């Protein structure tokens, strides 16, 4: 059955009105999609800071082009398409970065598509495994990903050496990874 296309065509010129339901719809879709878009970008660029910058660019472009979004399409796939183009453009303009070939971008995109079910499952079991860590381990792990908190600063405050903190982090990461593997296997069997 042919579905109605949702028209969120935001006016481009000053003086035209903006439908507030379009904004709400975009925020709803983007909130649900941004985590998966981030994963996709990180897969392509393999650099946290670049992935965060690119995610922001993708969000802006998705908003600007939201009028072109066809509701029959999957929003995540649509924004990942934008992300793919952003990464390729980023490659061209970024002198200091390591360039990824467009062939590898395609290969990775294929792999992401093929693994999509596992990746969602993995996200779910990761939440379960995180809940199994004790609060101290979780807090320590959080440090690795929290902007504004360096391991060095934590080491100074806790009186533990940087090396000891890194080792603990590695041990916790390994446990988490093992837990995810086990649960994935169990879910599949």
């Amino acid at each position: 059955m042919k579905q109605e296309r949702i028209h969120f065509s935001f006016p481009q010129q000053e003086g035209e009105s903006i439908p507030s339901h379009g904004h709400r719809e975009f925020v709803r879709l983007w909130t649900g999609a941004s985590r998966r878009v981030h994963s996709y970008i990180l897969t392509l660029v393999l650099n946290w800071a670049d992935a965060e910058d690119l995610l922001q660019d993708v969000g802006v472009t998705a908003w600007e082009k939201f009028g072109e979004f066809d509701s029959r399409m999957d929003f995540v796939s649509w924004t990942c398409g934008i992300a793919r183009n952003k990464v390729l453009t980023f490659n061209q303009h970024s002198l200091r970065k390591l360039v990824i070939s467009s062939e590898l971008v395609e290969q990775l995109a294929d792999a992401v598509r093929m693994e999509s079910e596992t990746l969602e499952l993995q996200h779910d079991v990761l939440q379960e495994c995180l809940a199994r860590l004790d609060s101290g381990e979780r807090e320590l792990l959080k440090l690795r990903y929290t902007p504004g908190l360096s391991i060095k600063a934590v080491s100074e405050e806790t009186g533990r050496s940087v090396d000891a903190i890194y080792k603990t982090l590695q041990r916790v990461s390994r446990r988490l990874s093992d837990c995810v593997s086990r649960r994935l296997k169990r879910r599949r069997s």
Partner: protein
Amino acid sequence: MSDLKNLEHLLSLDREVRETPEVVASIRSIISRDVEARHAYVRWAHFESSLGWHLTGDANAHQSIVRQLKSERIQNRRILVWGTTAALAVVLLLTGLITTAAIHHFNPYQHAIPLVAWYTQVPDADSQLPGVQAGKLLRAGHRIQTREGKVVLRMAQGTVVAWSGLVDLELRSAQEVVIHGGNVCFHVPPQAIGFRAVTPAGVITDFGTQFGVSVGFDGSAEVHVMQGKVELVSKTEKRCPIITGESRGLTGTGEIGELQPVNESLFASTLPLLNGIPKFRGNLRFWTIPPLSVNQGAALTGNAVGVFIERQRFALPDPLTVYSPAPGEYSTATPPTLTTLPAGTFVRSYFIHADSSTQTSNEVELTFDNKILGVILSAAQLSETDPLLGLREVRYPSEFHSDLQPKFRAFMISPGTTTNVGDMYTIHPDGKTIQITMGLLESYGIQDIDQFRILVADDP
């Protein structure tokens, strides 16, 4: 070793090492030729992203909020149990009506209004919000009116809201605030794209990353975009985008004004709070948009000392010699000792600039959010580090022909000698605060600028 084993080893390295060009190239080489390794890599990258997503940014704020909410509910439940028991006893003695009233009074859901913001910082003693303690969570509907001092709020979705002085602001949700009056700045991270600042004459929707809104108490407003892009929709439903370096006025009746350059001075005392300087004293001008040139006479700041951020989250490619950040008082005659930062150290570089064309001396005190790792003071050090730590869009004195360079560029002209024009600084015992006294050479009839770099610890 198989490709898969090799890949596992490379991916298990610390992030700083893993993101170096050599390691990235090796990983890409493996996943280009080995399909199995490619799939394993995709699973790993998504695992990393999911983990980071769960643990940081808005998640931090959400978790704190959830914890707070849970503890409040637990407390409320306890009160409920106690209240109900007491009321039942009263029922036995008196009447059932009191029971109903007591249960109603202790309803645990009476506070079920969403928690939307976190009052995280008290930059100075004058900044305490009336009736609100630092670290306190604020609910939707909370209206904040301040007369003085600086305030920083962290919204549940990650947006940082900062202001100073006379402001009347209402928290509507984690993604929306209403500004009834005053000058307020916002830093919006990627996960909070779509954040809205509502004014009496229009709504500003943010696409990141930094903007300021000034609302007059007659309902008029100005929107200034320091970085990124916002969209302004007036109450008459006129719409226009505003991008980096631009500003627009908005009349009380909703008419959008002409395009103007951004005026950062409206937010002079607030912008540092959003840029890693939670506390400062003295006449400081923070450039979120760096000047095009910092050569003599090119970036005048009046009586203020200019500051902007250069490279950040930057891993030093080689060891770097800097002046030590050890706490103490230092001057030209008694400079700090030199120290070496190892390659791979992540730094954020702040460039400090003052010009004798408009001032002869100045004193400022800056407190950073992270430890100071080192200071770059001498002209030679500055010129050497311009290409490394400087921004490509800024022209530094070292890029000009020697005839066009200032005679004295460095904060300390000849550290370790008696050539002293009053330049001195003190690093406080917290390792994060630096107090700077700058003397400029105008009185000698020689043009002078005082510049130096402060390197602060940063995250990968």
